[in-house]
């Protein structure tokens, strides 16, 4: 067998293995924030009733939380964070009527496959 043929065979095996690994990648992974309402870094005119976060993976409800803090660092949400029963990628928390200002959303979640991720962003309520 010449070396060119050997190389092609070697490459085809590598690609086959790579394909197999791509296939099993359905296993699970880190949960990244996909999008949120209010949107990351946005300004809203009316106080939102909830902050909703959609992630790229299903979440483990017992170990996933979100808080909303005002500029002084005081927690202002209603303390009822929960993962949606119908959509396990959605984490939300209720809000009281918010005064105009900047608010920080901090979250820490555990995806169902075991990886912990956290993060934060701000949104503004404008008069």
């Amino acid at each position, binding site marked *: 067998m010449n070396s060119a043929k050997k190389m092609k065979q070697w490459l085809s095996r590598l690609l086959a293995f790579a394909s197999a690994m791509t296939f099993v990648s359905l296993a699970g992974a880190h949960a990244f924030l996909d999008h949120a309402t209010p949107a990351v870094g946005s300004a809203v005119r009316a106080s939102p009733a909830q902050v909703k976060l959609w992630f790229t993976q299903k979440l483990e409800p017992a170990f996933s939380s979100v808080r909303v803090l005002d500029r002084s660092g005081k927690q202002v949400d209603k303390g009822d964070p929960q993962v949606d029963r119908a959509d396990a990628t959605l984490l939300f928390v209720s809000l009281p009527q918010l005064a105009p200002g900047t608010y920080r959303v901090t979250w820490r979640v555990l995806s169902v496959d075991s990886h912990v*991720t956290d993060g934060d962003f701000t949104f503004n309520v404008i008069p």
Partner: protein
Amino acid sequence: MSASSTSFTLLAVLATSSSLVTPEPASAHGFAGKRFFPATLATEDPFVADELSLPTVAYSKQPAGEDSPATRETSFSVDVSKRVTENLGFGFGANYKQLRPDEGDTQRGFDNLAASVKYKFYQNDERETLLSAGIDWDIGGSGSKRVGAESFSTITPALFFGKGFGDLPAEAKFLRPLAVTGLVGIGIPSRAGTTTVNDEGDVSVERHPHTLEWGFAIQYSLPYLQSFVQDVGLREPFNRMIPVVEFAMSTALDRGASGTTGTVNPGIIWAGQYVQLAVEAVIPVNSRTGSRVGWIAQVHFFLDDLFPKTIGRPIF
């Protein structure tokens, strides 16, 4: 089915079965706080992780030298890294090269194998900062001389760093997705020079200098922008892209050699949940390095995401 085919099949089966094991909390690869550092192609990144690059394909054309014709070089590499503990890991790499000179026969074969060890000794999540130290061993004589594999080893101790700029003030919030990773090391050849005698009996000595190996990668993370700074409306696949420019340099230090060679590699990394795809142009920084623009592309797997319970976790 050949023995090697059987091995690959078994690996694929193991990979599949291991993904079905019940998961439990595991740490993250390439993270410092909320900052995800992608694996870079031309410069070694600072984190210790369970990862597999399969394959990395590169193409370049080297200009003609005094005694050699212009040569097109294509390489296919495999690199794997494995955590021993949370902060200590090792890696292995193999590189199959094909050299096609404008005149003469095509040469194929493996370059020298590479082995490495790395220890992450500092991490500050709030400052998105990583520091690590490691040693790379280019194993002399393990490759084919046909493709230029050296008969001597080169040991390269190096320091690696990573810094995300998520701690910039709100006034500079659109710079927060920026990050830089890089390294500085000393390449120490195991032999000061190589003496060769040609058919006419002429003796020549090629000296092997110590080298300063240095490089960095500047990256702007669109996922970071979308998730932590401002949702600017990017959706798949753009919200997973990280534009990057890598600088990979080598400066000769002694033994009659001087000067720097290297490349500047602008490109795009797409970081998915389990796999990362990347492509970069490879631009020589000077005529000593080359004169043509090449390219490099890579498929990179996050083993800790694929197999969090088995091969994707630290051994201890």
